């Protein structure tokens, strides 16, 4: 039994925890906050609504009226899916050459997301928490209030996420290495990573700053010094030196996220280039997460298309999918002060992140990078329920429900 399901003894304790995560919102002041997520790609191209065609008249057929209830059977649509998603192991124990007490496996799906009438998902999708190495990272107030005491210490921040909020993994984002921020050296970045590895026993993902040259330099220093840890590097992009990046990952026993910007063909191209140097089992893919209302439709469909294509046998897309769900906070509706009819924003923000994540969960995402404790907890509870194999208990008689 996983540590996450162990806690689940009915729904009430989880609701209480959720309420605790949310409860603080009543205490805080309602300043506006300038919020940005420069380090995360936010983009999209949604479509327009088209008027639906008007209904056309129905040709009527002659029928004999039944006098008793008729019976019938619904077919369960079991499909042959020639493809399957590779499994990627995240983190390594001492016996495996790392130092983690807990390790995770993602991927392995053989059917579309949660089509469990056909097959149960082989592994739980993972909820990881974002941690930044730069105390000035702009965060929405609803998020920041949970991390205020630790924002200047990534190791403490990571510890808080694991111990208090049950983070299954930590995504450490090395923002200080950005030449436009502090241009911190690879060795100072390594120091941060070592501190975080010391502080927590869960697997680690390491994010760069988006500068293709600097990221490679920093990833190289970290990968070599932490060989065998199966760290998930976030990420390799088409404009990086792909051969060099891939070899650093492979030679030192790590894994990597192949990041592309909402384009199935680009995702294929990057994976194909990586295959020359890296086993498939070391690659997770991220096709970009856009916030609810800001291109989520596009993000959802690209991920769904990738997953379905992979299951239909496309050999260049069959990787677990990662989502920067924290991008949900780029939506102004997630953080902005709006009219009283939309208040409080301290609920609007985390529900925004939750629904962004949940929608992508149903598209097939395996690895979520999240921030708000209530959003993360809600996602985990939903995943627990989706994995439970439980069936509908007595149907709720909602028509006569007295509320």
């Amino acid at each position, binding site marked *: 039994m996983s540590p996450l399901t162990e806690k689940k003894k009915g729904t009430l304790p989880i609701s209480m925890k959720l309420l605790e995560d949310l409860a603080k919102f009543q205490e805080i002041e309602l300043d506006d906050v300038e919020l940005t997520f420069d380090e995360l790609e936010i983009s999209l191209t949604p479509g327009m609504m088209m008027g639906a065609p008007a209904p056309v008249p129905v040709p009527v057929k002659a029928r004999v009226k039944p006098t008793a209830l008729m019976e019938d059977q619904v077919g369960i649509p079991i499909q042959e899916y020639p493809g399957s998603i590779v499994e990627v192991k995240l983190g390594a124990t001492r016996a495996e050459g790392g130092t983690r007490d807990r390790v995770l496996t993602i991927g392995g799906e053989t059917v579309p997301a949660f089509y469990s009438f056909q097959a149960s998902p082989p592994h739980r999708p993972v909820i990881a928490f974002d941690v930044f190495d730069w105390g000035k990272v702009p965060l929405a107030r609803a998020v920041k209030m949970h991390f205020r005491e630790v924002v200047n210490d990534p190791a403490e921040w990571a510890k808080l996420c694991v111990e208090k909020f049950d983070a299954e993994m930590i995504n450490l984002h090395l923002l200080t290495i950005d030449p436009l921020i502090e241009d911190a050296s690879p060795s100072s970045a390594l120091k941060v990573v070592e501190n975080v590895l010391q502080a927590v026993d869960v697997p680690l993902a390491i994010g760069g700053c988006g500068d293709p040259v600097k990221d490679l330099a920093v990833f190289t220093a970290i990968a070599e010094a932490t060989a065998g840890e199966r760290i998930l590097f976030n990420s390799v992009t088409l404009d990086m030196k792909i051969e060099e990046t891939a070899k650093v990952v492979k030679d030192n026993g790590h894994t990597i996220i192949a990041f592309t910007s909402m384009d199935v063909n680009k995702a294929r191209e990057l994976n194909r280039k990586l295959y020359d140097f890296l086993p498939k089992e070391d690659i997770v893919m991220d096709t970009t997460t856009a916030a609810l*209302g800001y291109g989520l439709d596009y993000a959802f469909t690209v991920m769904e298309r990738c997953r379905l294509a992979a299951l239909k046998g496309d050999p260049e897309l069959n990787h677990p999918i990662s989502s920067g769900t924290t991008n949900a906070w780029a939506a102004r509706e997630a953080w902005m002060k709006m009219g009283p009819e939309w208040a409080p924003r301290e609920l609007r923000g985390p529900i925004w992140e939750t629904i962004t994540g949940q*929608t992508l969960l149903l598209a097939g995402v395996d690895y979520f990078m999240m921030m708000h404790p209530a959003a993360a907890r809600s996602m985990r509870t939903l995943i627990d329920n989706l994995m439970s194999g439980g069936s509908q208990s007595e149907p709720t008689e909602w028509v006569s429900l007295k509320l």
Partner: protein
Amino acid sequence: MPAKELSPIEIYKLLPGTNCKECGETNCMAFAAKLVNREATLQECPPLLEPSRSETFNKLWALLKPAIKAVEVGVGDRKVTLGGEYVLYRHEFTYFNLTAIAIDVSDEMPDEEFEARVKVVNDFEYEYIGMKLKLDMVAVRSTSGEPSKFEAAVRKAAELTELPLVLCALDPAVMEQGLAAVGDRRPLIYAATKINWKEMADLALMYGCPLVASAPGDLNALKGVAKTLWEYGVEDIVLDPGTSWDEGVMETLNNFTILRWDAINEEEEYLGFPLFGVPMVTWAEKTEDPVINEWNEAMLASALVTRFADIIVVHSISGWSHLPLVILRQNIYTDPRKPVSVEPGVNTYGEPDENSPVLLTTNFALTFYTVASDIESAKLDCYLIVVDTEGLSVESAVAGRHLTADSIAEALETYKVGDLVKHRHLVIPGRAARLSGEVQEVSGWTVSVGPMDSSGVGKFLDEKWTPNPE
């Protein structure tokens, strides 16, 4: 045949072939292509409506009809269409009719609460990319079980709103009295079950109203009820496979998926009807704070929007829980075949003069409308240059090299911005900050970096704008 596999040729072969242009197209082949894309309907072809072609019309109708029947509820401007869908996954074609959102009231609610809830549904509106997002329906529940109380509640709801109604009562005697009051409004009847199907079917036929077939947790029974209703003569059917939260959510999503898959990919008989979801089952759980129920309901409602529901009944009336839901619904039902962009060029706001600010953004519709509405609400007099970034937002246009110093300089040139103002001072979006130096170099304009979010544009110009900075 599934819609995604239909070709214009197959349709063209059956059209009159007169190339009469009465449909507005240049020839029958062009009209066939429009039909296949569901951008035109058969009624737009007058020759096809002649009695001699009725057999052909029926053949075409059968080829073009949606896999999920379009069921209309309500009358007048605000009537809703449920279903009318052709595909399982949106990228295979597009979805057409937004999942309708109904808010419930009950026949034992105090007047004040009842009226307040209907008012929330009536007044709900959120402006998003130039569209007004709304709630759609009011569901009246019989919690008393008394026909007269139900009738009074239904009558009251009908007086308070133009929106379509869902009448919810499992006792046919109760339903009958409700229908007697508002049957002419074409409400959706909830529901026919294994037990009451015959009485409910008679009521649906008598009042000409659509009817929900309901068998929570039992797909075979549900299909049996739907089949019975259909054979009995009820044609506008909606399917309710039951909705559960907590550990039951898996089975709920399974059932919605199975029904939609079978209807679309297997064309299984009696299943090609809209699906009915009830996120308000989350309110059955006693919690220490109703916020928990609202939160769970928002999640379940969103999951059902993603997984094929055509109508949902929700209990919350909180804006924070409805806003993500209506936006998600809009996103999922957006036509993925048409990327959204607006015309590039120069837009003017208020009454700008030669000393007014010149702002800049991209032609991605969401970006443009957001910036435009912020400019309008700040009551600014200014020019806004809309650069053609092939419909990308500022951030991705910068990353993807669609918004560059060169493309900005070119836009300034093409749109003759220099003729509109005396100064040479351009404000670029905060998210394009890294281009500022280069833009200055290439265009010769002085560049200021605006706020990261355009909601701050009024304040920014107030504090920082001068036509000729040093």
